[in-house]
Structure formats: C-alpha cells, structure tokens
C-alpha cells in the first residue's frame, strides 16, 4: 500500500491506533520476576558463617545501595546508625565470630574456632585464623585485637559500644581513666588471644561477633587520624576506595585478602545516600539502585504491600527479633499506678494496630518477641479485654484520664497514635497527639513532657536480654520510660552472668514477668522486616544484626 493510497481519515485512524498502542506499551512497565535464580556452580568451597550458601553464583558486577542519610562513621567502634552499621558489619570488617545461618549463634569467622571457655565462664582462649589480612595486606595478629579493644574502652575514643566490654577485667578503671592497664586482654602469641572477665557473661561470644570487636591496624589508625572515620582500613570482604561527601556516595571494591577464595562475588558495592524513601523506591523500580539499605520502611510499605506485583518483585521477608511498644512515662502522676498502665495494655487491640504497620509488625502483647528461640515465657502476653481494663481503672479510682502522646515523623506511629486514641477513648482515656520533628521529639522525651510515646527496638544480640536490659533496666541507655525495678535489674544481671543460655533465659523470663506486671509500656507487637532489593540481585541474604551479606550476593 503506497502512502498516496492512505486517505486522511485512514492515516489519522492508523496514527491513533499507533499512539494508543504506544501509550499502552509504555504503561506496562516490564518487570523482571522477583524469583531468585539458582545460578551457575560457583566453585567456592567455603564461606564465612551467615545465611544462605555460596554453592552457586558468578564473579563480577556491582550493586548500588541507597540510604536515607549519611552514616555517622565507618570506624568500626563509632558507627551506629543503620547506614554505618551495615558498612562496618558487612563490608569493611570481619569480626572474630559471625552469626550462623538465619537465626543461629556465633560461629568462627576471623577466629579459627569457637572460644575455649573456662568452667567458671571467666576466661576465654581464642585461636585466630592465620590467613586473615587487613586491606593493606598485613596479617591480623592477636595484638591487633588487644589494641582495638583498648581503643574501644579508651574514653578518648568515645565509642558508644564501650559499655558492652565492661565485664573484662580492669575495664572499669580503664574506662574511667583511672588506669592505663587492661589486664583482662592480652596476646599469648600472634594467633592466640586471651580474655579474662570479672564475671561470666553469657553474651560475650556474641559480643565478639560485633564489628566494634574487630581487629584494627594500629599503623593505619594513626596514619589516617580523623580520616579513619571515612576511609578506614579493615579486614572485611570489601575495602573502601572513595568517600565523596559532595556527591554523597562511597565506593567499596572486592578485597583480595579475604580469606575465603572466590568470595566475595561482587567487584564493587556503591553506597548512595541523601535519598528519601519514596525516591529510593522509584530508583529501585527504575534500576538506578539495587538495594534499599533501610528495607521496606513505613513510608513506602502501604504502596508496596498493596500491590502484589511490587511485593513479589522487590521484597524479601527477613525473620528478625524486635519489639514495638507505646512507652509510658512512669514518672508522671497520671501513670504512677501500675493498674492504670495495665488497663491501657488490656484496652489495646493489638491486632488492629498491627495492620497499620503494613506487615512490619505482628500483634504481640509482651516485650520479648514471640519467636524468641529457646525461650520459655512464664507470663502470657496481654490480650484485648476491655472489661478487665475498665475494672482495673475502677480499682485504681480513675474515672477518666488525659494523656499526651508525642510522636516524631514516623509514619507508623502517626497512624498508630490515632488508633490508640480511638481505642483508649472506650475507657475514658483522652489521648492528645502531638507530632514533632525528630530533634524536638527527643528533646521533649528528655524533658519528660510526653506521657506516652512510640518505641521500637531490634535485637542485635541473639537473646531477648538485649531488649530488656537496654530498655527496662534502671538507667539503661534506652530506658526512656524512667522505669526502675531493683528486682528486674537483679534478674537481668543474673541472666547476663549465666553460664548457659537456658539458665540465662530462665532469669530473663522472670524479669519479663515483672516488667509485664509493672507495665511501663503498652506492648503491641513483634517487629518484622522486609528487605528491598532489585530482582537482578541474586542470593540476597540478610540478618537484622548485620544487614545485607554482600560477600555472597551475585548479579
């Protein structure tokens, strides 16, 4: 058909059909199915502890991870926010131990074997692998741990993690600056590290699986000075090659010194930051980034969970341990009576609240997560019982109550506070909601202005003691409720000083029962986590304690 034969009407009709076809084609974004491939045999004989395996995969390629904010530091002993934590845990450093599988405990990584622990639980003998090297090529020796741990406990370092090593002999005086000697840590030889504790610590092996316990090269720390915070020299699977504040990106390349031949698969990992969650998700869909560091956040959860195709393509459920609760300021007169606090727990329908988390929390009325392994609780979780709540308030002589709920710019708590407002209205509790900026929120908490406020806490130790000791022990770093019960403090101490996990958990269960009775919070759920990654990212593995396992990803 020649062009001349096409009438004006036909031409317009054909053009219209073509335009519609083009529009329809552009509407239907082609998405790669989210299912992960098996991949070619990798030939990699072994891998450090962690979830998944490395039997299949191929070398090469790079991934880009997006973060909301810049990390506070890539120094293993200073980094604490999510961005920094993943960098120091999964990229830059290899601690003595790493957690095994998806839910297992510590297993040897930079250490040659699990520590030999004395019968009284106070002396640890740790044998090191001879093939672990820093990124400058120097082998890691026991003295590097002695140096690193002394630095961790040095008040001049100002490490947030120094308190975790308080059970090492001499650490109290060292931390206080009274003594320069730390007799509890010394190198027997290049490959043997000895640690002596003043009391048993059931979590100590797990502590050595944290990045702040990794070896540091003294010569590099001293050479780089302040720069060690941005471009450190570690011993992990990747080494940093650039940190660009202006363009908000850092680049990590495969370390040739990683002791497991063939790993990591990736040539390069790029971190980008300063991108808000909605934009991150668009970039993920567009292929500009491959992994969202913070995973599925409340900001995008509704959109992703509401669209089965998006959910299937980009999310991966990661079992984690953590708790969410509405913290109650026990210092206020209004909430001084435990019966009032218990009434609020009974008046809260956790099932309804869980829906507002968009899958990031499941209904659970206790502080220790429902799925805590090897844990036998002795007190049932709070459920929804309005009659009981009203009776408790009546016993307490409270007809009505007016409470101030403060929340920051967190999408979950903004919604959850509305639900609590509605639910508590049924027992004549009037909840006034104030939304503040993040900085103003924490200032208000410090000033004790809030009666109720939202809290969430992920375990970074494989024991529920991490949640209880951090949030409900007198003076604990995250005890914003102002809660104090000497019996809880005592039981938490006993749990920590236990020689076995069973014994530790038995004390923990008794402590949890006391916390439940005192109800310094309205316990509403166990936290859940969905990782967000592009379908091109294969063998994506993650644990809440560590973040993404970049050493086994392939593309």
């Amino acid at each position, binding site marked *: 058909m020649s062009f001349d034969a096409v009438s004006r009407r036909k031409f317009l009709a054909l053009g219209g059909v073509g335009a519609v076809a083009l529009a329809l084609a552009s509407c239907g974004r082609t998405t790669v199915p989210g299912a992960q491939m098996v991949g070619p045999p990798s030939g990699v004989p072994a891998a450090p502890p962690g979830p998944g395996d490395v039997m299949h995969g191929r070398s090469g390629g790079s991934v880009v991870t997006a973060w909301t904010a810049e990390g506070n530091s890539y120094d293993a002993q200073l980094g604490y926010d999510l961005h920094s934590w993943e960098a120091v845990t999964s990229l830059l450093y290899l601690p003595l131990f790493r957690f095994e599988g998806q839910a297992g405990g510590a297993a040897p990584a930079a250490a040659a074997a699990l520590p030999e622990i004395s019968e009284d639980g106070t002396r640890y003998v740790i044998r090191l692998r001879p093939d672990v090297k820093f990124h400058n090529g120097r082998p890691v020796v026991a003295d590097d741990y002695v140096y690193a741990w002394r630095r961790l406990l040095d008040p001049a370092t100002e490490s947030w993690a120094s308190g975790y090593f308080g059970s090492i002999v001499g650490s109290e005086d060292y931390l206080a600056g009274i003594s320069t000697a730390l007799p509890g840590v010394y190198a027997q030889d290049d490959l043997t590290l000895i640690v002596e504790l003043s009391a048993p610590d059931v979590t100590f092996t797990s502590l050595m699986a944290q990045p702040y316990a990794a070896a540091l090269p003294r010569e590099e720390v001293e050479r780089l000075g302040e720069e060690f915070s941005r471009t450190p020299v570690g011993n992990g699977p990747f080494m940093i090659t650039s940190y660009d504040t202006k363009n908000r990106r850092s680049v990590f390349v495969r370390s040739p010194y990683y002791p497991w031949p063939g790993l990591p698969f990736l040539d390069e990992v790029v971190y980008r930051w300063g991108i808000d969650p909605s934009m991150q998700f668009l970039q993920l869909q567009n292929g500009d980034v491959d992994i969202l560091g913070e995973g599925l956040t409340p900001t995008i959860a*509704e959109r992703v*969970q*509401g669209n089965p195709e998006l959910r299937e393509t980009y999310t991966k459920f990661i079992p984690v341990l953590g708790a969410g609760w509405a913290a109650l300021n026990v210092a206020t007169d209004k909430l001084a009576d435990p019966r009032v606090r218990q009434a609020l727990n009974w008046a809260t329908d956790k099932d309804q609240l869980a*829906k507002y*988390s*968009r899958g990031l929390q499941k209904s659970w009325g206790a502080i220790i997560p429902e799925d805590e392994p090897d844990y036998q609780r002795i007190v049932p979780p709070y459920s929804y019982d309005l009659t009981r709540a009203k009776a408790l308030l009546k016993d307490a002589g409270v007809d009505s109550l007016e409470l101030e709920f403060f929340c920051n710019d967190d999408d979950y708590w903004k919604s959850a506070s509305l*639900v609590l407002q509605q639910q508590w209205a049924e027992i004549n509790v009037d909840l006034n909601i104030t939304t503040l900026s993040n900085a103003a929120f924490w200032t208000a908490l410090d000033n004790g202005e809030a009666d109720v406020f939202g809290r969430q806490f992920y375990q970074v130790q494989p024991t529920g003691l991490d949640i209880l000791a951090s949030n409900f022990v007198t003076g604990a770093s995250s005890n914003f409720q102002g809660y104090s019960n000497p019996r809880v403090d005592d039981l938490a101490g006993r749990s920590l000083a236990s020689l076995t996990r069973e014994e530790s958990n038995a004390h923990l269960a008794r402590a949890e029962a006391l916390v439940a009775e005192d109800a310094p919070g309205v316990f509403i759920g166990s936290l859940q986590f969905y990782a967000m990654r592009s379908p091109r990212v294969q063998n994506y593995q993650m644990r809440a304690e560590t973040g993404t396992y970049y050493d086994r990803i392939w593309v």
Partner: protein
Amino acid sequence: MSTIVAAAVRDEHVEVPAKPTKTVRRSKLLYIGLTLLGLLILFAAVAPLFGSPYVLHRDGLTDLGSPLGILSPGHLAGTDSLGRDLLARSASGLRATLVIAIAANVTSMLVGTVVGLIAGSFGPVVQQGLMRVVDVFLSIPIVLSGLALASIVGRGMWGIVVVVTALYWAWTARLVYGEVLRLRGRGFVEAAAVHGVGKLTILRRHILPHISTVLLNIAALNGAAVVVIGAGLSYLGAGIQPPQPELGNLLASGSTAIDYAPHLLLVPLVLTIATVLSFVLIAEGINRRNSLSERQSWLDI
C-alpha cells in the same frame, strides 16, 4: 413614554397587564444541572447516615494494611489508608466543599456586586478609586495569593471562605461595573434620573433587576470556580486540614495511592467533577434559557 414606564420611573406601584405569552426556550441543561446539584446536596445532607468519617474501623484494612476496595462488605466505597469508611468521608467532604462553595460564592458575589454598583453609579473619583483596587486584586495570581492568605487567616473552613471571597469578589465587581456603565445610559435610567428618582432607588429598581441574569450566571460559574479553588487550596495543604474531610484533601491523599488503591482518588474525583459540572450546567442553562435576561425582562414592553 408609556404609562407603565412613567410609573416605574416614579417608583410607583401599578398594575401591569399580563405579559403576552411567549414561548420560553427551555434549556434541559439547566434542569440537568439543578438535578445534579440537588442530588449532590442531598448526598451531602445525609452524610451522617453513612457513619462517622473519623472512625478507624477494625475491619477497615487488610491484614497487610491495605485499604479495602469498592463494594467491600460494610464499606460500599471501600476504606482509606487508615481504615476509615470512604463513603462517609466523601459525603462529609462533599458537605464541606459545598458549604465553602456556597458561602464563599454568596460573600464574593455580595461584595463584588456592591462594589460594582457603587463604582458604576458614582463620580469618577469613586469609580477610579474602586476600580483600581479591583484591578490590583485581578492582577494577583489566584493560587499563590490563596496560599499566602490562607497562612494569614487560618486553614479552617471559614478561613478558606474568607480567602476565596478575597480572591473572587473582584471578578464580580468588574462585570457588574461594566453592566452598570452599559445600563446607566439607557433611556429608562435617564428618565428616572430626570424625574428626580434617587440613585439608590435607580440602582434597586432599574439597574439591579436588569443585571440579575448576569449575576445568576456569574454565581453559577463562580460556584464552579470556587469549588475548584477551595478544593485546590485544600489539595495544596492550605485549606481544610485532615482528619476533617474535604474533597481537596481527599484528592490529595488519594493521589498518592493511585497505583494500589485507585478508588481513594476516583471517588472524591467523581464528586468534584460532578459538583463543578452541576454549576457549569446551571450557568450554561441560564445562558441558553435567557428568560430573565434583559431582552425578555418583565420590564420590557
């Protein structure tokens, strides 16, 4: 001059013989518009029957926290992202939008008509003074000035009425002023003036009735514009604030959910379009019907 006109200019009451029956061209558009507006007002009036727009229903979300879609059990129009009934919120939102539209329309028409009549009837100083003020108001971009004004007068329902009045009175004033200028040179107005009829009486008896059609037309078109700007300001966060529903803020929250819960946008969008359409149809209907226009006014002989 006929007896009737002479009596009229003297502001006397006379028996006017029945006007010869004329075939008024009926406009279906007017009735369609009125019916549509009536239905919308009825829907808004019975909003409480659909339940509270603020209740977060326990069954209002799926287990993964997604809103329920249209025709879900117990929620005919589905729910929003907080599990609130969308029918209840839309009806209440429509009510707020209509209250704003009607109130702001009445006030802007009132102010605009008074200013236009005065400017057109008095001397050049008053005329120039008022019309330059009108020019200033007409030159200001509506959305930007609306946002600025809203931040000053507040973001509640009555705040938005004040804002919309301030934005729209000048359009009415300009049109009324033009009509007054046109009419004041007409014979019956001059005759009334010659007979010593006062200015206010001339305005009331001779000019106002002749611009009534124009005013009705402006009111109808203004209604449509006021719905759009009221909802627009709420959409931009300068109008009624959540959780109080209004079509604008419902559209704003719905627009973010277009890819996973399109009903959150569609339901308020349909109501907004229907409301604007009803006003436009009424205006067009009046224009076509024209039975009250100057040419077929009851004062025409």
